[in-house]
C-alpha cells in the first residue's frame, strides 16, 4: 500500500543532484518506517498458520493416509496447547442411519441444562462463551418468536403463563447454509448432520446470514477453553478445538452419536423432553413419536428448509 506514496526511486535521465538524492532517500526511508510502524501489531500474532495446515487439502479429497496425518497434526497441536493428549478421530456416518431430534414442548421447563452440557461436551470457547442452543421463553399460546425472551433468569423455571422452546441447529434437509457457502466448507452428511470443516472455512459468515434458526456461531476471536475442561474425546468434523475466524455449529454431538451414544443435551435433560434417534429404524423412539403424535411443529416450515428437528406436544 505504502509504496505508492514514496517518490520515484529511479534516477531521472540526467544528472541527479545530491540534494534530490538525499530527499528521495529520506522520503523512502520514512515511508518504510511508517509502513513498519503500521504493521507493528502483527508482532503480537502467536497462532501462526503452519505451512502444513495452510496447504491442507479439502476434506472430501483427502485420502485416509492424508487424514491420518491431519489428525496427528491436530493431536500434536492440542497437546502442545492444552497439555492433554486428546483422542481425535474422523467419525464417518453409518449406513442406514438418519438422525432426527424430537423435543416435547409440554415437558421442557427451560432449565438450560442442555445449553451448558453442550458447551462442555463440544469444546466451545468459554470466553467469550459460544452456545449452540438458545432457549426462548414464550408467553402461553404464541409461537411468535418475536415475543420470546432470550435472557430470562433461570432461577425460577418453569414460570407460570410461559413455556420454553430450545432452538439449535435443525439439521435441515434443504440447508440454506450449505447452499450459500462459497467454498463448500459446510455440507450435509449421509446421516443428515450438517458439518463444518474448520480447516476449510474462510470465515465469510454468509452461512450465518442464511440460517433461519440462528444456529451458526462464529469465532470472533481466539477460542479459550480452560485446560481442565477440555473434552479429550474429539472428532474432526465435531468437537475438536476451533481456530479464530471460522464458523461452527451443533453437529448432534457427532463424536457421541456416531459412536452409538445420545447427544449431550439429551442425556442431561431432567424432564425427558428430548428424544433422539434413527428415523430409518421404525422401532426407534423418534419413529414412534412421529408416527403417533397428533401435531408436531417444524420451525419455520414455510421456508421449505424441512428440518430434522421436531417440536411436539404430549397429546
Amino acid at each position: 500500500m505504502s509504496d505508492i506514496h514514496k517518490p520515484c526511486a529511479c534516477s531521472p535521465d540526467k544528472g541527479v543532484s545530491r540534494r534530490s538524492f538525499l530527499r528521495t532517500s529520506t522520503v523512502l526511508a520514512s515511508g518504510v518506517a511508517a509502513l513498519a510502524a503500521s504493521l507493528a501489531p502483527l508482532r503480537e500474532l502467536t497462532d501462526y498458520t503452519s505451512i502444513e495446515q495452510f496447504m491442507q487439502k479439502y476434506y472430501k479429497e483427502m485420502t485416509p493416509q492424508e487424514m491420518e496425518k491431519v489428525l496427528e497434526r491436530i493431536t500434536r497441536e492440542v497437546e502442545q496447547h492444552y497439555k492433554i493428549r486428546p483422542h481425535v478421530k474422523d467419525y464417518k456416518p453409518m449406513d442406514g442411519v438418519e438422525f432426527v431430534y424430537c423435543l416435547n414442548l409440554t415437558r421442557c421447563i427451560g432449565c438450560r441444562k442442555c445449553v451448558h452440557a453442550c458447551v462442555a461436551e463440544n469444546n466451545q470457547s468459554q470466553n467469550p462463551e459460544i452456545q449452540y442452543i438458545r432457549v426462548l421463553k414464550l408467553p402461553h399460546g404464541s409461537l411468535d418468536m418475536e415475543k420470546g425472551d432470550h435472557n430470562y433468569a433461570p432461577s425460577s423455571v418453569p414460570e407460570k403463563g410461559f413455556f420454553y422452546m430450545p432452538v439449535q441447529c435443525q439439521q435441515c434437509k434443504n440447508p440454506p447454509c450449505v447452499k450459500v457457502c462459497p467454498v463448500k466448507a459446510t455440507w450435509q452428511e449421509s446421516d443428515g448432520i450438517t458439518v463444518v470443516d474448520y480447516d476449510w472455512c474462510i470465515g465469510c459468515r454468509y452461512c450465518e446470514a442464511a440460517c433461519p434458526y440462528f444456529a451458526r456461531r462464529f469465532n470472533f476471536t481466539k477460542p479459550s477453553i480452560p485446560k481442565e475442561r477440555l473434552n479429550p474425546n474429539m472428532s474432526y468434523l465435531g468437537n475438536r478445538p476451533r481456530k479464530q475466524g471460522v464458523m461452527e455449529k451443533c453437529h448432534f454431538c457427532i463424536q457421541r452419536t456416531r459412536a452409538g451414544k445420545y447427544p449431550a443435551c439429551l442425556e442431561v435433560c431432567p424432564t425427558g423432553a428430548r428424544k433422539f434417534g434413527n428415523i430409518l429404524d421404525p422401532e426407534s423412539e423418534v419413529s414412534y413419536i412421529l408416527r403417533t403424535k397428533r401435531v408436531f411443529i417444524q420451525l419455520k416450515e414455510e421456508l421449505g428448509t424441512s428440518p430434522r428437528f421436531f417440536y411436539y406436544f404430549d397429546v
Partner: protein
Amino acid sequence: MMRACKNYLTFLWRCTRIAFVGDWRYYAWLGLLSLFCLVGLNAYAKQIVHGLVVTGMSDQVSWGVYIANFTFLVGVAAAAVMLVIPVYIYGNEELHDLVIFGELLAVAAIIMCLAFVMVDLGRPDRFWHLIPGIGQFNFPGSMLSWDVIVLNGYLLMNVHICGYLLYCRYDGRRPAKWFYIPFVFLAIVWAVSIHTVTAFLYVGLGGRPFWNSAIVGPRFLASAFTAGPALIILAMQVVRWITADSPGGGVAPPPSGTPAPEAGARRPATLEDLELLASHLPQFASVPAEIRQSILMDAVVLDVAPGDALLRQGEAGNEVFFVLEGRVVVKREEKGRFRITRSVGPGEQFGETSALTKTPRAATAIAEEPACLLRLPADSLSKLMQIPQMNKIITWRMTERLMITDRALMILRSIVQVSMLINVFLLVNEIFKEFYSPTAHVASSQYLYFGLHGYHALVPWIWVAIAFNLVAMFLLVLPLSRSLKYLNVACVLAIVGIWIEKGMGLVVPGFIPTPLGEIVEYSPSLNETLVCLGIWAFGILCYTVLLRMAIPILQGTLSKATEGHGDFYHRSTETPTLGIPDVKTAHSR
C-alpha cells in the same frame, strides 16, 4: 514483436514515473491519503491478531460496515456503464471523453470492493479456497461464487478497455474495434450483472424477509445509477479544475497578450512541404497529385517561435493547420482558467473543427517549441476530406481531445435525475408493501424506520438518508440544478443518502431482529471505522494515480511522439497538467 513489447514497457514505465511527478499540492494529497492508508493498515493488523472481535459485529449481526461499503461500491463500479451506454449505444459524442474516467473509477471501486470483502473474511489466509480450479468453488449454488466471478471479470474487462484505449492514444494508433468494442458491450451486461448478483446475495436468503424481496435488485440498480453518475459529475469537475492552469499566472498566455497569429515568418508552401507532411502522415500519400497541386495554391507555411498564438478561442477563422515540425498545445479557456485539450505534433492537425463547421475557434493554439506549420483554407481541407484515408484519420483525430463540457455534465444530470426518480418510486413501493398490511415480516422495516421494542439506532440515519434523497430529487427535478452549484449539492446529498440507505440501511436491518426474534444492535467500532477509512483512502489514491496517468495521455502530452522529449523534465515553456511546475524548475528553486 520485440519492438511492440519494448514500446509497451516504455509506456508502462513512463506511466509509472509520471505518477510520482507533481507539485507540492499533489504530494501533499498523496501523503494525506497514504497516511490514512497506513492508519487503516494498522487497524487491520490489529484485527488480524485479535480477530473480528475488534469490530462491532456479533453472531446476531454478522455483517456490518465492511459489507455495507462493499455493497455501495459495487454500485459505483456498475455506474461506469451509464457513461458507456450513451456513447457506444446512442452515439452521444458529448460524453465520449468521459468514458475513460468513468471506467477508471470503476477499476478503483472494484479494487475497494475486493479490499472490503478481504477485510471482512475471518480467514483471509484461506482466500485461495475461493479460486476456481484451485479451491472448492460452490458454483452455481452459492451467489457468493457468482460474485467472485462477476467482480473479477468486471475488473479485468475495465482494466483491459482503459489500458488498451490509453495505450493506443499514447501510441498515436487508432484502436482496433474488434479488440475493445466487444468488451465494451460485454461490460454493459456485466455491470448490470455485478449489481444484480450482489443484490441476489441478499435476496436469496429465504430466512431474512427484509432481504428476501424481489425489489432489492431493482433498487440496487436504481440507486447505483443515481450515486455512480453523481460521483462522476463531482469527479469530473475536480479533473476539470486541476487540469486548468490558474488564471493570469503568467505561465499561460492570456489571449489578449499574445502575439497575433500573423507572428513569425510566412511563405507560400512548396511541394517539399507537402512531402514533409506526408512523411509524418502516411495517409497523405494517398492524396492524388492533382489535389496536392490544387491545395498548394492557397497553402501557407508559417515558422513560429515558442509562445506564439496561432489561433485564439472565440475568434472566427476557417483555416486548418498541419504541424510540420515542433509541437503546438491547444488550450481552452473555461471560467477564467486554461486547460490543455490537445498537444499536437508533426503530422497532426488543429483548427479543423472551425474550418469544417464554420464555428468560432473553440480553443487557443500556442506553439510550445519553435514550429513549422502548414496552413490550409477550409476549401482545401474539404478536398482532402474527400480522400477516404484522409477523412478517416482527420475525423478520428478530431475526437482526440480532452473536453469536459457543461453539456456532458448535464447529460449525466438527466441520468441521475431519472435514476433518482425511479429509486424513490421503488422506495415508495417497498414502504407501501411493508406497512400497508404489516405482517410479521415488517419487523426489520419497523426497526429501521421507527425502532422496535425501544431499539432505534438506525432511525435517525435512515430519515436523514430519506431527507437527503428527497431534497436531491427535488433539486434534480427543478431547473435550478442546471446550475452546477445546485447540481453539486444534489449530487453530494444523493451520494450520502444512498450510502446510508443502501449500505448500513440495507445490511444491518436484515439481521435485526434475528430469526429467533432477538434484537442486538450494531454500530461499527473505532478499529472497524479506521479500516474503512484506510480502504477509502486507498481507493482514492488509486483513482488519483490512474487519473495522473490518463490525463496527460488524453491531452497528448504523454505520447510516443513526446518520448524523446524526456517527459516533463525538459519542457521549458510551461507545465502541462495539474498546474504542476516542471520538476527541474522546482528542484532549482
